[in-house]
């Protein structure tokens, strides 16, 4: 059988696009649809409920608390990770003997899953016999409760997320640094610019696109932070680490309330779209 030539590209596209449409695009739309249904307790069937699910979550202090925790987490973790990633990328961009070895070592956390990171760091931060407390006591500092404290648990999650996040995002910034043509920086040096001046006046503006991308990608990734919460805190103590992704899982899969869970996910979806909209705005009209 011979297929007409103009169908060939569509044949090539069909398998991947169908999969993406069925398993990614349809569920995206279905999240919004699902959020308007509730599971009837009497018949076990799904019943259209309009905005009932939204009403429920918007009047639920646990939802608002987890929303608030997520905002605080985002406002802390993203600037910290991006600042450290920028510093790290500048460090590993230095032309020093042995720098290749350092770059390889900094790749290690990126290959390791967030689960493994959470398990290992969870034990390192153990309040009774973890290594971090072992080191602190050696320095004469009292043992800290870390994941068991309302004040320290979220910070512990930030440390765990950053162990992967900082090296990961530094790779993007490093690629951006390496795209800057060396003559540009040499010319600035000849003109008598200090290292700080050439960094703020030349390097940073040229990194604008990369940094905007990293900011958005990092924000979205941290917005969905889940595994460390499930494995280490279950949202506690006193909901202090109850990030919104964990709350949707708890509602949907532990309590079986898929309606409320979908309503929360829809809210998150809208927020993700706003973040992406901001990215497209930031990147518009460049080159």
């Amino acid at each position, binding site marked *: 059988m011979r297929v007409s030539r*103009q169908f*060939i*590209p*569509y044949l*090539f*596209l069909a*398998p*991947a696009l169908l999969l*993406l449409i*069925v*398993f*990614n*695009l349809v*569920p*995206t739309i*279905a*999240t919004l*649809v*699902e959020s308007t249904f509730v599971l009837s307790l009497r018949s076990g069937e799904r019943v259209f409920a309009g905005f009932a699910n939204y009403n429920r979550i918007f009047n639920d202090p646990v939802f608002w608390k987890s929303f608030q925790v997520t905002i605080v987490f985002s406002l802390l973790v993203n600037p910290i990770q991006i600042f450290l990633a920028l*510093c*790290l990328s500048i*460090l*590993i961009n*230095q032309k*020093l003997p042995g720098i290749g070895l*350092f770059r*390889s*070592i900094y*790749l*290690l*956390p990126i*290959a*390791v*899953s967030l*689960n*493994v990171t959470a*398990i*290992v760091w969870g*034990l*390192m931060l*153990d309040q*009774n016999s*973890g*290594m971090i*407390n*072992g080191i602190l*006591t050696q320095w004469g500092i009292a043992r800290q409760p870390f994941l068991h404290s309302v004040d320290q648990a979220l910070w512990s999650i930030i440390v765990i997320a950053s*162990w992967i996040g900082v090296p*990961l995002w530094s*790779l*993007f910034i490093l*690629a951006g640094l390496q795209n800057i043509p060396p003559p540009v920086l040499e010319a600035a040096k000849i003109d008598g610019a200090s290292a700080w001046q050439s960094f703020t006046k030349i390097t940073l503006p040229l990194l604008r696109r990369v940094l905007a*991308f990293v900011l958005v990608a990092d924000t979205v*990734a941290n917005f969905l932070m*889940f*595994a460390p919460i499930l494995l280490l805190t279950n949202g506690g103590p006193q909901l202090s680490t109850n990030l919104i992704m964990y709350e949707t899982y708890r509602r949907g*899969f532990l309590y079986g309330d898929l309606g409320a869970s*979908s309503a929360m996910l829809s809210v*998150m979806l809208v927020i*993700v779209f706003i973040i992406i909209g901001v990215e497209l705005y930031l990147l518009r009209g460049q080159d």
Partner: protein
Amino acid sequence: MKKAKPWTAYIQPAIAYILLISGVIIVVVPLMWAAAASFTPNHKVFEYAYPFSWRALFPVDFTMEAYDNLFERGFGRAVGNSFFLAIATVIIGGAANALAGFAFGRFEFRGKQFLFLSVIMLTFMVPVDLTAIPRYILVNSFGWINTWQGLLVPGLANSLVIFLFRQFFAEIPQELIDAARVDGASWLRVLFSIILPISKPVLVAAGLLMFISQWNSFFWPLLIAPRQEMRVVQVEISLAIGQYGTVWNELLAGSMIAAIVPILLVMPFQRYYVQAITGTGLE
């Protein structure tokens, strides 16, 4: 005569090395401790961690006990499941994504721009975990809970990988393809006998990306395949934690197995892997 560098010229590199080494300590110490503790009897796992001594970083009381027990209790099954899933994703998903990337990179056709923006870009931007619940309901309606199809099929197509392939294929010189087309080769033949042989970098990059993201994936397998014989490595280790009476050295042994596979894959192919992850961010 060449003048010796003044001592001040060494300050900057010295600071750089100090910072680089501090970072390495933060990266390496947790992994060294976890690896050492996984080779330690369970009652001694925290012995040198608190109070801290350098012995915590080396398996001074070496034993394979944790690994032996782990595999006796069927952890090998989870390792096998993870390998099977990751390899199947690379082969089947790789083929589907390469074909789509080829179409976007080399063909002109009606609706190209629209399909690229509406399907590829949109699915690239919406994180998969965010839409897991309706995907779960969908897959449940197929009767795919606790099945290989349920684990495998939704993760086969990957817009990031399609992106990578598109970029690579778009840069292949047209003359190479024209010559073969003149000789009467079909498009499928052009793809397999001309393009794929020169595509080693993109194949390695895409393969690594698909293998590792499948190996490390957690949320979807946790939802879709909780039954014991279907569990993958990441789910198995996550269920071992927090259970009544966690066996620490076994938990760490499982974690080390989960970690070593992607590390061993990334190390020899660092350049490809870095390109694979950063490729899309710089467009």
